[in-house]
């Protein structure tokens, strides 16, 4: 469902993503990990058509990203870390706009919008301006908007940021049920526990290069340690963080 071949993005002399080769089949929940600035968001932006790769190719939902961008876009949903929202629209109006943009059929649209709003407990806020929503509510309306057109591939950048535990649980359940129905989910997160518990496979990117990919069990064979956190730190330079922690402990008066 997602396939990349030597996907590379350069900003001047900086290589943000270098030669990324990935294959993610349909119905898989793929976790994408990496330290800050490793290239996670750049990768997602390239796969969603928000950035043009410097070199390499990508196929998403069976379509080539370079030659059939509109078909790719019609098949995917992308929730950015800070969702794209219109503050001067109400939640319901915003979802209607998104439904129009993705050509969601009129029949059953109202019920679908109402069901999504109910699912994320936004039903009683549907007629309030998004500008008045809290951060968590904005994240929830963003989630509703990416689910409204039943995407075949879902890209989520830190989807549980700002959500209360109950909503975070709803997100996890929704993602699980989507994956069971054959949707591919590509998720980046810093919450390793969620990735460890939910994802079928995990990819770790560091300095723009994919340093590991596989199931948690396969990753355990690549790097020493028992938890995903240990594996992550071992592959991305965790020793430095321990040194910082040590320094802070010694520095305390």
């Amino acid at each position, binding site marked *: 469902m997602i396939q990349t071949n030597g996907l590379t993005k350069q900003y001047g002399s900086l290589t943000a993503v270098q030669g990324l080769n990935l294959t993610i089949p349909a119905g898989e929940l793929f976790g994408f990990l990496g330290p800050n600035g490793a290239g996670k968001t750049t990768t997602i932006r390239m796969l969603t058509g928000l*950035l043009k790769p410097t070199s390499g190719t990508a196929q998403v939902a069976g379509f080539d990203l370079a030659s059939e961008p*509109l078909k790719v876009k019609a098949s995917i949903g992308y929730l950015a870390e800070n969702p*794209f929202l219109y503050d*001067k629209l109400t939640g*319901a109006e915003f979802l209607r706009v998104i439904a129009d943009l993705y050509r969601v059929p009129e029949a059953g649209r109202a019920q679908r919008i109402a069901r999504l*709003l109910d699912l994320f407990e936004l039903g009683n806020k549907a*007629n*309030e301006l998004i500008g008045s929503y809290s951060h968590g509510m904005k994240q929830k309306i963003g989630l509703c908007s990416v689910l409204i057109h039943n995407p075949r591939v879902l890209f989520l950048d830190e989807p549980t940021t700002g959500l209360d535990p109950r909503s975070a649980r709803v997100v996890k359940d929704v993602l699980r049920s989507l994956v069971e129905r054959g949707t591919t989910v590509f998720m980046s997160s810093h919450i390793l526990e969620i990735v460890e518990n939910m994802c079928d496979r995990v990819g770790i990117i560091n300095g723009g290069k994919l340093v590991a990919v596989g199931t948690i069990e396969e990753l355990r064979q690549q790097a020493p340690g028992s938890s995903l956190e240990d594996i992550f730190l071992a592959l991305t330079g965790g020793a430095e963080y321990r040194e910082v922690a040590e320094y802070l402990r010694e520095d305390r008066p």
Partner: protein
Amino acid sequence: MIGILLRAKALIWKNTLFRRSRRQQLGYLAFLALVGYMAVGIFRGITYLFTTLQGAAPEAASAFLTSVLAGLVTIALFWGLGSTLGLLYTASDLELLMSAPVPPLTVYALKLLESVQSLLLPSLLSLSCLVAYGVAIGAAWPYYLLALLGFVALLLLLSALSMLAVMLVVRFLPAQRTREIWLLLFAILTTVLWGAWTLTANNSRTNMMQQLVDHQGTVSQVGRALAWSPSGWLARAMTAWPGQDWAALGLNLGLLLVVAAVAIYLGYAVYQRAFYLGWSRLQEQASRRPSPAMESAGQAAGKRSPMARALSLLPIQVRGIVSKDWTELPRDMSRLSRLFLPIMMGVVYVYSTASSDLAKQLPGSAIWMSMALMPLVPFFMTLYQAVVSVAAEGRNMGLLALAPLSGLQVLWAKFWSSLGPTLLIAEVTTLVAALVLGATPGQVLLFALAVAWFTVGFVAIGIGIATLSPNFAAGAGNRRQVGVESTYLAMILSAAYWVVHLALITWLLLKAGPALTQSLLSQLVLTLLPDVVPYLDTAWPIVLLIAAEVLLWGAIAYLWRRGARWIERWEITALGQSA
């Protein structure tokens, strides 16, 4: 502490100025040079005005200084209210300042100084007047020192008053809402002032200086009425200089300094008591209460509004963007506020034309000349709607880039969303003006159709230019949403479109219009464009008009094609976000 904060501000200012591309730096330097050139010109003009006035009627000069200072100070105060609101409640540094161990007095002092800085530009004209008056009376250097002292005191007083007013208003109204209402009021006030000034200037056929001299009694009366205002104290202090009335000078300047100090103290007292309350209301936004029908989990969430139903002829994706833009427009006061100036411009120029000498000499011509100018309304509205329509998406351009939309679909959506309000306002103002000027039903229909055609062309040009230099970061702020080159290109192309179609309509009416209209238009052409008359019966007009049409629509088609490609190649880095 205040020193650290001011150093940080200076650093930010320095980085903003110098850490930009060479092209931006050159543009900024060119802008500064232009501002400097204009400032010198304005200062020379003011100096000439005061010198001449002082020579002819010294009483009028001092009264004029009082009146001008009062007017300028009022404008500066109004300006200051808006910027102080932003500085006190919506500035990006507030959370940092509030969470850091910075004493309230330091935060207040910093905001006061920032407010003074924001008032500096609109107040510089006041300083110019004081200096120009000094030049006119041949004052020695201590005059300028005292004028500067008084000017600084006046600025501090204005800043403190702005802060006081803002803090009191925000106690009752959320800051975001106050800012929006303020923007709307400021736009209306500016527009009305501009309109009044233009109409007055148009109506006064005699020299302005002579008028001042002739009406020095009235000017003095206004000056006396304003004498007991802060700007009046400063003016009285400075106008006491030629008569060497040191007591009056000291008393008025002292009064200004004392009142400024009291206002600063009062401002701080109110700041301590009221600021946190307003700050806590910061996050509040005007939001419609859910209607009973919507309260149960958005049962009606999927229902279409009447507006959306009216758009059902458009393709679904285009309709989505258009209905979104039209829903947002009446809720966004900063966008609404931009609609007043084009309307006022239309009204002023139509009025001026209708009351011109030519209109009086040629009965029946007023309506034709006025209607020729009516496209001014859509002309200027296009600059505020169509040209900025893509940039106005701000970071949500990412949302459109994610959606399965072609570049051309986005442009069509923006075309319809800009055309709606522009056409509505253009038609309403045209119809009102036509009826006021006594147009016949046939003329009303012709003018309505003509304005619609002009509007379609202007908006098409504006949309083609909208992707030339959009600034997506301008969004909520007051920064320019498109580059200057886009604005000028839109104006040049729209003016060309205007001239060509005006010529086409005139030519058609001269050839096939009613006899009375033909006769009237012939006389108008003979009066305004006598060189053209010999060619009217040749093939030249129609050949030139067809050539101009081909060129214009070719340019529009090229701009649209380029714009569509630009949208399809758009990358999120255009928002200025890091990877």
